[in-house]
């Protein structure tokens, strides 16, 4: 038996022995379902608390992080085995969030030893929930034009300005933010990346209501907020490099969530027969007997499924190449734009298939699945805006991959 096989059976045994009852099959998503930790966390069901504790104890909430910062110290191959075994037992992730997906990897890359020891273990244990202070009312796609001012005052910076599109700003404990420390140089060269406690005096948070009716984002204001200079990552005016690296982690997270690269694994026989779109087509009367009668609709559904499959094969190709020791290929640059466009197409198709049942807002006559279809469609329109619009992604591909001139 190979080491990996031994690790697999050991992991399976441990999970079966330690995962509490009552958490199997619970949902988790980038849209907020699941356990995101933090000071204000509510464990629902309460077994999620035990689950987090036993997993964090082993470092398996951040399986590949080094053990000295509380991580699991696993290789990528072992981490994959762990996630496969969790999926096989239908166990949800013990912890989700931007700490694990965004600021954690960034700190590992750029943080000082002291910063890593201070923040990473708290992320692993789910004690601190992080949010992102990037966009501003006048700085969207042109992120580097951001204007939130940070003025030095002894060993502190004093912050004034406004951040928007702060995901879950109202339930987060700490923020990683981009601020302007020098307004007199090229815009990318006067930006600093820093960490701040959301409980610092002068920080205020307002939810933003979306077209979907939900408020997953907030606006965050800073009025004379004092942040220690020690909270700067990489160096004053050196924040743009850190910012771009973190955006890379963010895009990978979004691509993974919406493209579902996990879907790349082999499906069981006949799985496509039960594909969600086809099931909806049957449910809402487009199909009788063997197939979908409307040939144009059948072609559209096939096209969507085929696009999805080709995308999953591409993420697999990227992983296989990495495992074979190749440098990341140009294909990884397409993940964010393609995954989000695909998710929009899919969401739209679901509304169209549901027809009159897909446009309900609330109240009688619509079941929960139908209302979810409607709200998910409206929410999905933002997928190709957040984390860098599709247009920005295409600019990046044109410049960095294709070498087209500015």
């Amino acid at each position: 038996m190979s080491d990996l096989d031994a690790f697999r059976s050991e992991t399976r045994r441990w999970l079966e022995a330690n995962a509490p009852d009552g958490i199997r099959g619970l949902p988790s998503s980038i849209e907020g379902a699941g356990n995101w930790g933090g000071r204000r966390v509510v464990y629902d069901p309460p077994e999620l608390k035990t689950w987090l504790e036993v997993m964090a104890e082993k470092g398996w909430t951040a399986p590949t992080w080094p053990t000295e910062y509380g991580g699991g110290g696993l290789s990528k191959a072992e981490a994959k085995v762990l996630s496969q075994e969790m999926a096989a037992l239908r166990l949800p992730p013990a912890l989700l969030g931007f700490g694990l997906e965004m600021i954690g990897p960034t700190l590992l890359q750029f943080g000082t030893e002291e910063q890593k020891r201070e923040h990473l273990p708290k992320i692993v244990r789910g004690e601190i929930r992080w949010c992102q202070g990037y966009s501003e009312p006048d700085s969207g796609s042109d992120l580097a034009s951001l204007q939130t001012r940070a003025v030095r005052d002894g060993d502190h910076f004093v912050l004034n300005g406004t951040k928007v599109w702060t995901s879950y700003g109202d339930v987060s404990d700490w923020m990683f933010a981009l601020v302007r420390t020098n307004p007199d140089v090229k815009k990318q060269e006067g930006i600093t990346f820093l960490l701040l406690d959301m409980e610092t005096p002068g920080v205020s948070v307002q939810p933003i209501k979306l077209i979907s009716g939900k408020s997953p984002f907030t606006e965050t204001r800073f009025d004379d907020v004092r942040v220690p200079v020690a909270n700067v990552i990489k160096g004053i005016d050196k924040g743009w490099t850190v910012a771009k690296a973190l955006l890379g982690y963010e895009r990978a997270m979004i691509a993974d969530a919406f493209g579902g690269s996990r879907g790349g694994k082999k499906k069981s026989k006949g799985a496509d027969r039960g594909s969600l779109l086809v099931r909806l087509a049957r449910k809402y009367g487009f199909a009788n007997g063997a197939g979908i009668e409307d040939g144009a609709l059948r072609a559209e559904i096939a096209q969507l499924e085929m696009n999805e499959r080709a995308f999953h094969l591409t993420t697999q190709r990227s992983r296989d190449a990495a495992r074979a020791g190749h440098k990341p290929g140009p294909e990884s640059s397409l993940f964010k734009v393609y995954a989000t466009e695909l998710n929009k197409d899919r969401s739209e198709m679901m509304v169209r298939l549901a027809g009159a049942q897909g446009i309900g807002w609330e109240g009688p006559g619509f079941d929960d699945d139908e209302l979810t279809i409607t709200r998910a469609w409206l929410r999905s329109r933002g997928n190709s805006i957040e984390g860098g619009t599709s247009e920005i992604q295409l600019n990046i591909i044109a410049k960095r991959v294709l070498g087209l001139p500015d």
Partner: protein
Amino acid sequence: MQLVLTEDQELLAKTAADFAAEHSPVARMRALRDAGDETGFSKPLWKEMAELGWVGVPFPERFGGAEMGASELAVVLEALGRSLAPEPFLSTVLLGGQALLRAGSEAQQKEWLEGVVAGEKWLALAQQERSSRFDLHRVATRAERDGDGWRLAGEKIAVLDGGAADAFVVVARTAGADDDRDGISLFLVPAGTPGLRVERQWRVDSRNAASLHLDGCAVGGDALLGEVGQGLPVLEAVADFATAGLCAEMLGSMTEAFERTLDYLKNRIQFGVPIGSFQGLKHRAAECFIEIELCRSAVMAAVRALDEDSEEAPKLVSLAKARCSDTAIRVANEAVQMHGGIGMTDEHEIGFFLKRARVAELTLGDASWHRARWARLSGY
């Protein structure tokens, strides 16, 4: 399934790319066209490719082959696709040769495959008909018993390299109605058989193609390939194998057309700047890049699924062909548009990529045919 080239495959890809660059510039294909060459490809160059072992890639060692798979053939075809090389891999190796390999008797195989692998004999598959579109089961050509042998009657179109073939695998109906799945048989008919007339056709890609007119063409009992009436499953397997190979060729051609267009975008100056600095063109170029990358993944998956004999292979082949068909056309259209006026001239090579893309799209099923097949194989 690992979607990454092995070291051997990388080496093969490099050898093929170097060979194509040295011996097969696009200008060679232009010269064949301008000469009105009846063969449409180069027999000496084919012989060289055979000596390099490429022609024999998917054939057993006992016929001189390398006994490798679609994955290896794909890297060769991709490299040749870049140079629009018109050599008859599709007709001789992937269609005719595979039909013989999968359905032929030992005697039939021995008679033909050694010559094929040696680069000295050429085969073609005569399957498509005027009213069959891409459906393999729609066969109106009839074969009737005639003593110990058979008598064939009907017309075949789009017989690839039919004008150069030494023998044809002819698909004919021995029983049933024109669109029955049963009752389809395969016959090996040597060129020059009385009652067989081969008419060389000229298509936009200037490769060799022919129509076949079978007018009471008499063949012996030993001309039958495989079982009477059981030809369709063989045909389907052959078509999947050949389609995957064609996709690899298309991948090479579209990549080349795209890279040439990128060069043009970087070097063509208008309004005092390279036209590639305009966002209207950048975004379209980036979208082409994305589509090509997705094609590459689909093609790699399709050939590996075939080599692993995966039950998913037919779906992955349809995925690859649908994507490659759409993307080849999109990239070729964009290539001509972005080249502007010069792209419309016969003098410039980019137009050849547009012409080949269209022919490849309409060979072995276009995108909508393969989408419908995907849906059918998925149970809807």
